[in-house]
């Protein structure tokens, strides 16, 4: 029944376009000098959109290149589009900020394009070497853009902290990869899956280290410590970027490696993922309560969301992976929309980041407050908004896989989490209005509007996204 995969270099077309385009933009920026940032931003977005279109236009079915190192299946297509949308939105949202803060540098958008290239390679990676190279290509630009505000102490600290901890996690991942290679004799996921059953406890050690590296990248507990500091210290558009696209690629590598390379020892990795997911959900819910800075709050919120997404992976079934995909798609829209609001929290003195500054937003900017409230309700998982469906699908998958404890703890954690989202809504609607913000930039309006409408209208036709996600999940099994 399964059609033979098509081989050929055509599968890499979107990656070629991004790599070539990034180099052209780099040359353009270098030669045009000071005048180029605005043009580079726009061209980078066009480049990303073009790559996204190419991903859709690739021949259908499973494409394989380089002896199975690079795989394009429906799973990869779904997540690639998502990652590209996240990156493009991040560049779009940075334009206004950079202009106001006088931080325009053409390298910024080029680095994001290169990072997106890494994400695409990571999403398609079907062996350990390709996975590691994709991961590094994705992460290196992240360290640089985190520290891109060179004169700000917080930004450079965030960049350095992220870099050092990222190097540590890469080391752990490589150590795990070398153990896996040593015990199976191959780096390709298919080969590992074949010899996994006969390789005993050594392979589990490798798996644990490999998962530790993955957890760091998706900021899941116990490897989440960098997240709040980096989110808070990095320039806000960079934080918006961190919260969306790299998480998509990280989850993609986590799911593909777990499902494709280790199907023989599912029971073992299920326990690890279930633990990580419970710990992330609980920490994300409880630690966020005391936060006053909205960027730190979003960091804890994203840790929690990663926990919920991993519930689907813990189920280990095709339905669970479908839940993960739906969750990630909705998570990206919720996060980008919320960051569009955070990026427009700007008054005379510059950016403000405290939650109290949102006081009375409903009276000063009623539309913005309404859309933000909808996004927050969606994050809390209130029906009929999209966030409810996201949680619903992963929990149903967990229950069908018999993981009742996990599902119950997840629901309880989401109730606790709802408290701090609702606390923000309360500040916006019932507190005495603070001073007005500046007018919201048009591109931020677009991002906020699209994301919020998606979350509100999702309930009308959920089958669209769920159907695509279901097909994508089936392509892995």
């Amino acid at each position, binding site marked *: 029944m399964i059609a033979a995969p098509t081989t050929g270099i055509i599968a890499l077309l979107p990656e070629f376009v991004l790599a070539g385009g990034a180099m052209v933009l780099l040359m353009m920026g270098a030669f045009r000098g000071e005048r180029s940032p605005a043009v580079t931003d726009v061209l980078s977005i066009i480049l990303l959109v073009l790559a996204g279109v190419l991903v859709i236009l690739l021949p259908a079915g499973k494409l394989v290149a380089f002896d199975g190192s690079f795989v394009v299946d429906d799973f990869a297509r779904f997540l690639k589009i998502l990652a590209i949308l996240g990156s493009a939105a991040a560049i779009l949202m940075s334009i206004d900020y950079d202009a106001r803060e006088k931080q325009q540098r053409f390298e910024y958008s080029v680095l994001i394009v290169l990072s997106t290239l890494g994400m695409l390679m990571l999403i398609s990676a079907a062996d350990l070497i390709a996975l590691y*190279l994709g991961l590094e290509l994705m992460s290196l*630009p992240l360290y640089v853009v985190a520290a891109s505000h060179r004169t700000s102490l917080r930004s450079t600290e965030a960049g350095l902290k992220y870099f050092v901890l990222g190097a540590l996690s890469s080391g752990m991942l490589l150590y795990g990869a070398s153990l896996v290679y040593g015990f199976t004799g191959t780096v390709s996921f298919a080969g590992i899956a074949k010899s996994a059953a006969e390789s005993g406890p050594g392979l589990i050690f490798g798996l644990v280290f490999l998962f530790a590296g993955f957890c760091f990248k998706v900021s899941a507990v116990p490897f989440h410590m960098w997240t709040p500091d980096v989110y808070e210290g990095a320039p806000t558009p960079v934080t918006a970027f961190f919260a969306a696209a790299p998480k998509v690629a990280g989850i993609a590598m986590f799911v593909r490696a777990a499902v494709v390379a280790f199907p023989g020892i599912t029971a073992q990795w299920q326990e690890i993922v279930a633990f990580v997911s419970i710990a992330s959900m609980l920490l994300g819910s409880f630690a966020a309560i005391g936060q006053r800075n909205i960027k730190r709050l979003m960091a804890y919120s994203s840790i929690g969301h990663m926990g919920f997404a991993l519930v689907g992976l813990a189920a280990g079934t095709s339905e669970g992976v479908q839940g993960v995909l739906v969750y990630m798609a909705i998570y990206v829209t919720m996060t980008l929309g919320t960051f569009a609001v955070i990026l427009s929290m700007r008054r005379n003195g510059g950016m403000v980041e405290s939650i109290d500054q949102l006081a009375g937003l409903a009276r000063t900017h009623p539309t913005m407050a309404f859309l933000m409230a909808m996004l927050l309700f969606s994050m809390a998982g209130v029906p009929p908004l999209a966030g409810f469906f996201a949680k619903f699908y992963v929990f149903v998958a967990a229950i069908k896989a018999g993981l009742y404890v996990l599902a119950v703890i997840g629901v309880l954690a989401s109730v606790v989490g709802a408290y701090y989202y609702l606390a923000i809504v309360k500040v916006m609607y019932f507190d005495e209005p603070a001073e007005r913000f500046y007018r919201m930039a048009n591109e931020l309006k677009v991002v906020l509007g699209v994301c919020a409408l998606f979350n509100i209208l999702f309930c009308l036709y959920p089958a669209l996204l769920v159907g695509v996600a279901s097909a994508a999940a089936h392509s892995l099994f």
Partner: protein
Amino acid sequence: MILQAIFFYFFAGVCIASAIMVIVARNPVHSVLFLILAFVNAAGLFVLLGAEFLAMILIVVYVGAVAVLFLFVVMMLDVDFAALRQDILNYLPIGAVVGVILLIELIFGVIGWVVTPGATKAIAAPIASNVSNTQALGLVLYTRYVYFFEAAGMILLVAMVGAIVMTLSHKPNVKRQNIGDQLARRRSSAIDIVKVKSGQGLS
């Protein structure tokens, strides 16, 4: 066979001796020079193993670039190594404990060395026996592994761009060489011929 053993013990002995000298030498410049000696001897060991490509890479990269860089850093930075050395006795006990633990682990690791039965049959790119290993590397690096090679190239590009983004700054009052301006200079704009009458000087 006996010749090979003699060379092995010679390289290994000098390598260990120079490695010890790296740590105990009082002068940091001597330390780096002993480090270079250790690298060269390690390269000799690689040659004995039949891994001539690794041997050459070790010489070119480590001796040629890294060690020389070290030497520059040691000479340029004004670090008081004698003062650093004062503390060495304080850390000796902990260091010794860690060292012993590592040694025991290594011994256990070597004793328990069992190659997984399935591991060798699945080797992705077995080395052909009739080519030198440089050639063998070349054969897979640009064919089977070209994707990884190119990906590594992209990572290096990002590293370069990143280093420039983090450090390059255009300060307004720094004089830079502008070759265009230099070439556009004409005799008329550069020199003034003045007749000076003797005994009067220039105003």
